[in-house]
């Protein structure tokens, strides 16, 4: 699902300035062109996570950046592990 900037702001309950700051920090990456940015479901879920981290859990700006970075790395590793599992399953003899 592709969302315009306005739709994204209202669904994520965040302000225009907040979005700008988050994009500046590279916490969020907007799609589309700079004239017509677009967002998707994953951006909404990520914005919610950022809000929960900072508002509900009281994590400060630096902390949010560190957490997002580590969470993304963790997902990268988990994905690789899943691919690895798939690849090992397809190899009857396993490795070696």
């Amino acid at each position, binding site marked *: 699902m592709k969302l315009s900037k306005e739709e994204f702001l209202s669904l994520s309950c965040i302000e225009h300035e907040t979005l700008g700051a988050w994009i500046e920090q590279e916490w969020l990456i907007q799609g589309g062109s700079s004239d017509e940015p677009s967002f998707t479901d994953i951006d909404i879920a990520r914005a919610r996570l950022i809000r929960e981290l900072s508002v509900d859990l009281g994590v400060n700006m630096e902390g949010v950046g560190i957490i997002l970075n580590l969470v993304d790395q963790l997902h*990268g590793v988990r994905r690789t592990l899943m691919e690895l599992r798939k690849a090992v399953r397809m190899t009857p003899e396993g*490795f070696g």
Partner: protein
Amino acid sequence: MVTTLTDPYKILGVAPTASADDIQKAYRKLAKKLHPDLNPGNPEAEEKFKEVAGAYDLVGDAEKRKRFDSGEIDATGAERARQSYYRDYASAEQDHPYTDNSGFADFMESEDALAELLRRSARAQANRRGRDLEFRLPIEFIESIAGANKRLTLPDGGTLDVTIPPGVTEGQVLRLRGKGTPGAGKGDPGDALIQLEIKPDRSFTRQGDDIYLELPISLTEAVLGARIRVPTPTGTVTMSVPKGSNTGSTLRLRGKGAPKQTGGDGDQLVKLKVVLSKEPDPELEAFVTNWEGGKTFNPREDLTP
């Protein structure tokens, strides 16, 4: 929905008399440990987090807490229905802009089969470059030699300005960097690849860097010689046709061909063709009738056995 009637204070690990501040502190402490996005592979944490969040929902809010303490409401249904977490999207198989595979970059430096597998998956997933878009662009022969600026209309209605450098060849591909589809994440956009299709020209042909033109001349010009105007792809030039020129004589115009890859320009080769006027000319007929040289000259001398 199954709900357990549990004491929200117990779930949060605080006394029923705890201050709002203490309740928030307790909640934050637990949530930092249990938040599903901080435990992407742990369903147990998610269950616990739901309980904790439900409890905090009830007693973390002053108004609700008052009503709960007075027995007006209980913990039933306190559990928040939650749509989805970031991890549900981040763990999906397809690529997303936040994909980060640097967490095992060090593993990939080794040479074993595992590393190869990791490398392959990293290549597939990393911030992928956008796709290249391919187009075909027909251009005139003259444009291929002299260069041109063209505007291409894209399937999505957009336009692409293409500068055609002088001297392009049939089938040559121009690459417009960054004009393809946008990249994923931090990946660069793809390129637009434009394959040129040169339309045949009525007069000019090209061989290598040289351009060929067949140029009709009159009998007078052939016999007596003349200065005539000759078209080239980059404009008209004046050329001397020497006295006694014949059909098939080829004259070279230096530097009037296609630009060479190595610098400089090819030549234009002008092949002459003597053409008589369409209307019969009585004066010419009378002259030729009495022309002795015309009767003795045999242009087919070499052909006769």
